[in-house]
């Protein structure tokens, strides 16, 4: 158990929990940034930006 505890947490495991877990609070008093879909969209953008170096198979070379 201690071995697991000491090891540095991988970022993806953390993001699974911080961006998909946790209590979501919405309403006028918040800045509404915690909105689930919003964050998910941002993360997708992030993932595709990570993938940007890899040429897309759908892009036709003209």
């Amino acid at each position, binding site marked *: *158990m201690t071995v*697991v*505890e000491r090891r540095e*947490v*991988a*970022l*993806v*495991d*953390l*993001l*699974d*929990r*911080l*961006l*998909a*877990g*946790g*209590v*979501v*609070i919405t*309403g006028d*008093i*918040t*800045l*509404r*940034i*915690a909105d*689930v879909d*919003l*964050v998910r969209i*941002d*993360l997708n*953008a*992030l*993932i595709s*930006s*990570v*993938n940007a170096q890899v040429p897309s198979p759908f892009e036709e070379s003209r």
Partner: protein
Amino acid sequence: MTGLRYVYAVCRPFGTPLQAQLTGVGGDPPRLLPHHDLVAVVSHVPEADFAEEPLRAHLEDLDWLTTVARAHQGVIDALTTVATPLPLRLGTVFRDDSGVRSMIEAREENFLRTLDRLEGRVEWGVKVYVEPEPTPKEPATPAPKPASGRDYLRQRRMRTKAQEDLWQRAESFATRLHETLSECAEDSRLHAPQNPTLSGASGRNVLNAAYLVPRAESEEFVERVDRTKDGTPGLRVELTGPWAAYSFAGEETAGEEGA
């Protein structure tokens, strides 16, 4: 104005002080904001970074997101040693202390109920990967050259068949593992399989699950996971935790319906 309020978690009041050197998001030490029977754990953060627009832009910056996620987790980890925190989603920001208090006031009953459900529990993460096809180790003896077209096709079919068998085995293994672990957990959640680009892990992630387990039964749970690691050639099981109950902080729980 002394900036905005970033809220990490809500807890019941706890006696032990947080580590003095602990820094949170934006380098600000986490502070306790008590209200009625609850305590919000907050940091003061600059508007320039945490107002809606800049925050949205920052969330697409992986380095920034990493720093904030690590700081958030650092605070939750520290809280876990002195209390059972109810973690909030990353990036939950309020304009001021009174905004935080109103939020607690509005959700007080829910918070107390969820905190009761999570008291003394931790979350364990279990992932199953299908290992990438091993690269042939014996370059000295190359595979026999196909003698004919039919021979070639047969060799190819055998390779494809082996891969299909592995997938089928992975699927039934993951299903069985999830069933077994769900039985000895109070609740479970399935996360989406992880993107290998972000995780950098080798192999394909076929199960990414979280289990809610009483702290006292954690050792048993971990041993159970460890036992499954043997005798699964081509598959890899990974355990993470113990985590604060991030994946079980929401209101509705699938496990409770059937109970």
